[in-house]
C-alpha cells in the first residue's frame, strides 16, 4: 500500500503529531481573536512555554507537570501583553511583536544550562495491541495523549464558541465591544481571560516541541511555528474545525515534502514549501469574493482597544 514509496498510513499518523504545536497555538489564538484581540506574540508565548515546560518536566520528572508548566509559562507571558494592551491601551500589533522578541530573548536567557538534557519521555497513550492494528492502529490509536488533547480541544472550542453563553459573550466582545459594554459585560476583563487562555494553549504547543517532538531544549526551538499558527487562524476564518484542517494541511505538507524527498520524487521542494501559503491566499480570495466586501469572517473589533470612557 505504498504510493511512490510513501506509506500513506504512516504519513497521516506523522502529520497528526507534527501539526500539534501549531494546532494548539492556533486554537488559542482563535479564541483571542474572536474576543477582538490581535496578539502577534504567539511565537514568543510558544517558546516560553517550550522552555517552561521543559524545565518543570526535567525537575519534576513528570511530562504531565511539564505541560502544565508550559501552559502556566505561556499564560504568564501573555498577561504582560494583556496588561499593556487592556490596561494601558498600548497598540496591539506593536505589543504583540515586542512580546515575540521578548519571549525569544527571555527563553534564551532562561535556557542557559538546559542544553543537552533529555526530558522524561512521553509514551503513546493506548496499549501496543491497539496501536499495532493495521491502518487504524497508527492513525487512531498510536499517538501520545497530547494529540488526542489537541483534537478534543478543537471540538470543545467549536462547541463553546458556537453553543454556549460564554462563547456568545466572547463573540459579542469581539464583534462590537461597545455593544457588549452597554450590556454590562466587562470587556477588558473578558479579553484578559481570553488572552491568558491563548497564552496557555500556545505554551502547551511549545512544550510539545521541547518535550515530545524534538525532544530537548535548544534556543529558538519554535523556529517560526508561531507565525504559521497566526496564518492558520486567518486561513480558517476563525473557526476551530477549519483551524484543525489548516494545521493538518500545513503540518502535512511539511511531512509530505520530506517524505517525497526520501522517496526520490522529482517534485521540487520549493513548490511544496510554498503550497500552504498559496492555498491560504486562494482560500482568502474565494471567501471574500463570495461575501461581497464583507471581510472573511474577521471579528469586527479585531485589534481595537477598548476603554469605557468612549
Amino acid at each position, binding site marked *: 500500500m505504498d504510493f511512490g514509496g510513501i506509506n500513506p498510513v504512516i504519513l497521516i499518523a506523522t502529520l497528526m503529531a507534527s501539526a500539534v504545536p501549531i494546532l494548539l497555538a492556533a486554537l488559542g489564538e482563535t479564541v483571542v481573536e474572536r474576543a477582538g484581540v490581535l496578539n502577534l506574540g504567539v511565537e514568543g508565548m510558544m517558546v516560553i512555554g517550550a522552555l517552561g515546560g521543559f524545565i518543570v518536566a526535567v525537575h519534576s520528572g513528570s511530562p504531565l507537570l511539564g505541560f502544565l508548566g508550559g501552559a502556566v509559562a505561556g499564560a504568564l507571558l501573555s498577561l504582560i501583553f494583556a496588561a499593556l494592551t487592556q490596561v494601558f491601551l498600548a497598540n496591539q500589533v506593536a505589543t504583540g511583536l515586542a512580546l515575540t522578541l521578548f519571549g525569544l530573548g527571555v527563553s534564551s536567557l532562561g535556557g542557559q544550562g538546559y542544553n543537552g538534557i533529555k526530558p522524561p519521555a512521553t509514551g503513546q497513550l493506548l496499549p501496543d495491541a491497539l496501536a499495532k492494528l493495521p491502518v487504524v492502529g497508527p492513525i487512531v490509536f498510536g499517538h501520545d495523549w497530547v494529540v488526542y488533547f489537541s483534537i478534543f480541544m478543537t471540538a470543545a472550542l467549536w462547541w463553546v464558541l458556537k453553543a454556549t453563553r460564554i462563547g456568545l459573550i466572547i463573540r459579542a466582545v469581539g464583534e462590537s465591544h461597545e455593544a457588549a459594554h452597554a450590556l454590562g459585560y466587562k470587556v477588558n476583563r473578558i479579553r484578559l481571560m481570553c488572552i491568558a487562555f491563548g497564552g496557555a494553549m500556545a505554551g502547551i504547543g511549545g512544550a510539545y516541541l521541547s518535550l515530545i517532538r*524534538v525532544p530537548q531544549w535548544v*534556543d*529558538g526551538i519554535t523556529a517560526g511555528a508561531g507565525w504559521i499558527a497566526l496564518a492558520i487562524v486567518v486561513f480558517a476564518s476563525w473557526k476551530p474545525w477549519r483551524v484543525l484542517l489548516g494545521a493538518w494541511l500545513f503540518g502535512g505538507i511539511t511531512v509530505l515534502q520530506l517524505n517525497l524527498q526520501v522517496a526520490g520524487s522529482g517534485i521540487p521542494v520549493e513548490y511544496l514549501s510554498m503550497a500552504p501559503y498559496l492555498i491560504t491566499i486562494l482560500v482568502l480570495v474565494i471567501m471574500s469574493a463570495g461575501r461581497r466586501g464583507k471581510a472573511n469572517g474577521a471579528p469586527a473589533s479585531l485589534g481595537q482597544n477598548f476603554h469605557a470612557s468612549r
Partner: protein
Amino acid sequence: MKRRNLLATAAMGLTLAFGGAASAQGMDKVKACFVYVGPIGDGGWTYQHHQGALAVKEEFGDKVEIQWQESVPEGADSERVLTQMALGGCNIIFTTSFGYMDPTNAVAAKFPDVKFEHATGFKREHPNVTTYNARFYEGRAVQGHIAGKMTKSNKIGYIGSFPIPEVVMGINSYYLHAKKVNPDVQLSVVWAFTWFDPAKEADAAKALIDQGVDVIASHTDSTAPLAEAAKTNGAVIGFGQASDMAEYKDGPRVSSIIDNWAP
C-alpha cells in the same frame, strides 16, 4: 560500537588569520567579531564556533576583544549586522556560515581596512576577504564507512541543509565510503533547506526512519535528528554533527565530527 571516534577537524584558520591581522597592522589590541547563523546554544555548529571565539580570547588575553551576534539570518539582515560591526570598530570579522558569502563581499568592498574571514565560501572578491574551511569530508568518510558496515536494511540517510559545496562534499564522501564496504547500500538525501530548525530536522529524520533508513547522518546544526533516532530504541543510529553531542552517546550516537576552531 561504543568506541568513540573523535574526528577533530582542527582548523588552524582562526589563529593564522588572527595573528596575521594583528601583527601586519601593528595594533596593540584587536577587536574580533563573529556573526553566527544560529543560537550559541544549538549544541552544534554555532556552539563550536563560539567555543573557538572564547578560545581566541583565552589565548590572546588583553590583546583581543571579542564581540558576537547570534541568530543572524543569511541575506540582507547580515549585511546590516556586518556594516554595523565594521562601523563599530571591528578589525576582523568572521562570517561563520556559507550564506553570508555575498553580504561579506559586499560589505568588505566598503571597508577596505577591515579583514573579513568567511567560512566555507568560494568568493574572495576583495583583498581583505579570505575564506576558511575544514576537511569535514574526512570525517564523513569515516562515518560512511561505519554506516556501510552498520546498516541492516542497506538504506542509509543524510539530512542535508543546503545544496552548497561544503554539504555536497560531505554527502559524496559519506556515500562513496559506505558503498566501498557495502556495495548494496542505498543513500536517501533529504534537504531541510535550513541550518537550524529542530522540529523540521526531527521531521526529516522521522521521514527517513519511516522509510526504512537505519543510519542517519545530518548536516544541520541541532541535535534533533539524534533525538529522533533515540526514540527507536537502538534500531537506528546516527552521528554527532559539528559538536560532540555526547548526551546521545549511550544511545544512537556512534561517533561525532567535532569542529575544533580554537587556536
